[in-house]
């Protein structure tokens, strides 16, 4: 399946003076796992909301599952599954009842209702707990239930907005396993946002978004190739001398981040011995690694993804949720 399932052209969303999305073009093919990667406030949620018909764009067009999001939002909604950033399950109902509710409002035919619910519960390993009230579920189970729910009406695309936010690493891993299995079994197209760099590696293709614009688009390997080889970092007690010598002797200009010198080189394995041998300035520590998506992001935007800032923000969100389960 290679047909285009999501197509966006020149999407812009303005809130008064603020331009949250500043001209986004993208195409997603059937059966792809497409990741939308960027820091908080980059415009990820706004873009996904436009594609899901929850927001109308200020300018631009988008087609999802062959339908224009502006002309027939209900048609789009019938063909997509949604997993929101914040929980949206009814804690007083059981898992199965939550799915039954969804099957009704999405007009799942009565003849297949029960069978599909059973299948989805099975696929997301919730069969054992299907009869328990959802408020007794863990965070990961609630997420799985929401994924099961989003799949119930057999959508062509499953949209997930930060599906692993606030989950522990093990649970995040299991969510990913489930998403991969869903794709394998159902051939579904998955469009997701995340600000976890490590998670983006699971995607077939990634769009990196910063300040409302896509700054890079490709497979994780293609994006990493943009960094150009390997990443070498070193520390020195005389960093100024080290920078000068590296630039003069080795023909590489290192960048400095919190006392660490960082350079991108074509062949790291050959570079490190030269570095240690030829430098007069003391070399205290050296690391060599393959480039990560973090490096790509830094290279493209000139700043780190501000994980720490995101971390505090998320913590506050989680606290807010614990108090009143509220968004924004």
């Amino acid at each position: 399946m290679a047909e285009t399932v999501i197509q966006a052209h020149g999407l812009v969303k303005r809130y008064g003076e603020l331009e949250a999305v500043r001209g986004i073009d993208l195409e997603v093919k059937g059966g792809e796992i497409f990741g939308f990667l960027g820091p908080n406030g980059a415009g990820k949620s706004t873009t996904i909301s436009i594609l899901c018909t929850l927001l109308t764009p200020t300018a631009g067009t988008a087609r999802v599952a062959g339908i224009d999001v502006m002309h027939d939002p209900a048609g789009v909604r019938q063909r997509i599954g949604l997993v929101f950033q914040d929980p949206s399950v009814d804690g007083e109902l059981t898992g199965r009842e939550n799915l039954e509710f969804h099957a009704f409002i999405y007009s799942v035919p009565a003849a297949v209702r029960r069978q599909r619910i059973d299948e989805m519960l099975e696929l997301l390993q919730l069969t054992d707990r299907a009869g328990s009230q959802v408020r007794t579920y863990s965070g990961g189970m609630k997420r799985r239930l929401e994924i099961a729910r989003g799949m119930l009406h057999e959508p062509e695309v499953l949209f997930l907005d930060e599906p692993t936010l606030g989950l522990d690493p093990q649970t995040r891993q299991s969510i990913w396993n489930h998403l991969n299995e869903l794709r394998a079994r159902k051939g579904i197209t998955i469009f997701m946002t995340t600000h976890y760099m490590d998670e983006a590696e699971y995607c077939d293709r990634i769009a990196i978004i910063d300040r409302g614009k896509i700054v890079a688009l490709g497979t994780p390997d293609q994006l990493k190739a943009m960094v150009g080889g390997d990443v070498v970092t070193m520390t020195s007690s005389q960093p100024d001398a080290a920078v000068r010598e590296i630039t003069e002797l080795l023909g590489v200009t290192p960048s400095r981040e919190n006392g660490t010198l960082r350079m991108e080189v074509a062949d790291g394995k050959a570079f490190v011995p030269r570095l240690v041998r030829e430098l007069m300035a003391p070399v205290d520590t050296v690391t060599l690694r393959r480039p990560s998506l973090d490096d790509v992001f830094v290279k493209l935007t000139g700043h780190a993804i501000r994980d720490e800032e995101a971390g505090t923000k998320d913590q506050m969100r989680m606290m807010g949720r614990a108090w009143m389960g509220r968004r924004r």
Partner: protein
Amino acid sequence: MSAEVAVTPAVPSGVQRAPVDTRLASLRAIYIIWYRDILRFWRDRWRLVASLTQPLLFLVVFGSGLSSSLQGSASFGAGRLSYIQFMYPGIIGMAILFSAIFGAMSIVWDREFGFLKEVLVAPIDRSAVAIGKALGGTTQAMIQGLILLVLAPFVGVKLSLLTVLTMIPLAAVMAFGLSSLGVALASSMKSMQGFQVVINFLMMPMFFLSGALFPLSGLPGWMAVLTRIDPASYGIDPLRRVVLSESGLPSAVIDKLGLTINGQVLPIPVEVGIMLAFGIVMLAIAVISFKRRD
């Protein structure tokens, strides 16, 4: 993955799906939204029990207290009707009013906890959401009101089967009118703070002015006007007439205790009509309000 596992092929993009009958889809949505409310209502038995305590408190403490001091008062048929008997249908009305408003407020709750989003993004007409919610509230409020009929023997009210059967539709209409009011209010409400405002500045005044606790005759002019504006008045009066018709009081006395406009006693069908019309208007407002928001 074992070889036995059935692989359901995905629906290829662009393939025409069986068209969904939108009217049928709306009916299904109304049903499941109503059913969810009922399910939650039954599951929360504590609330059912707790909801009985307030009417009981009113009847036992308030009712008994005032009964003795009002004994023999001319307006209560010179001793043939006790205050507690007068008040009893009013308390049934109170239970309906309170539970209708609280029931509708679950919309605000759903918004706080995110579930409303799941409902609002569904490919269904928003009017189905408003109607489903109003009917869910109606059913709950009706049950909460009619459950108080079990207290009849304790307050010295005789009920015939006919009385009970007449009260069911009357309670339903009142519950519908007030639930629709609640849904209309909740549909545009963003936070729980607004909920407090509704309770203090709308629900409580509606209760006090509804004729639940005192006859609506011989009131000061301004208050008489307010009681006639109060939609709950038109729900409680028919309930009281039906209950009192069993008490053996002359109908002239019953009429004197009831709701009048310009000195004219309103017949029960007119009161029911007013309540029903009020409910439909409120529901229409709720539908518009639901359709408008993102």
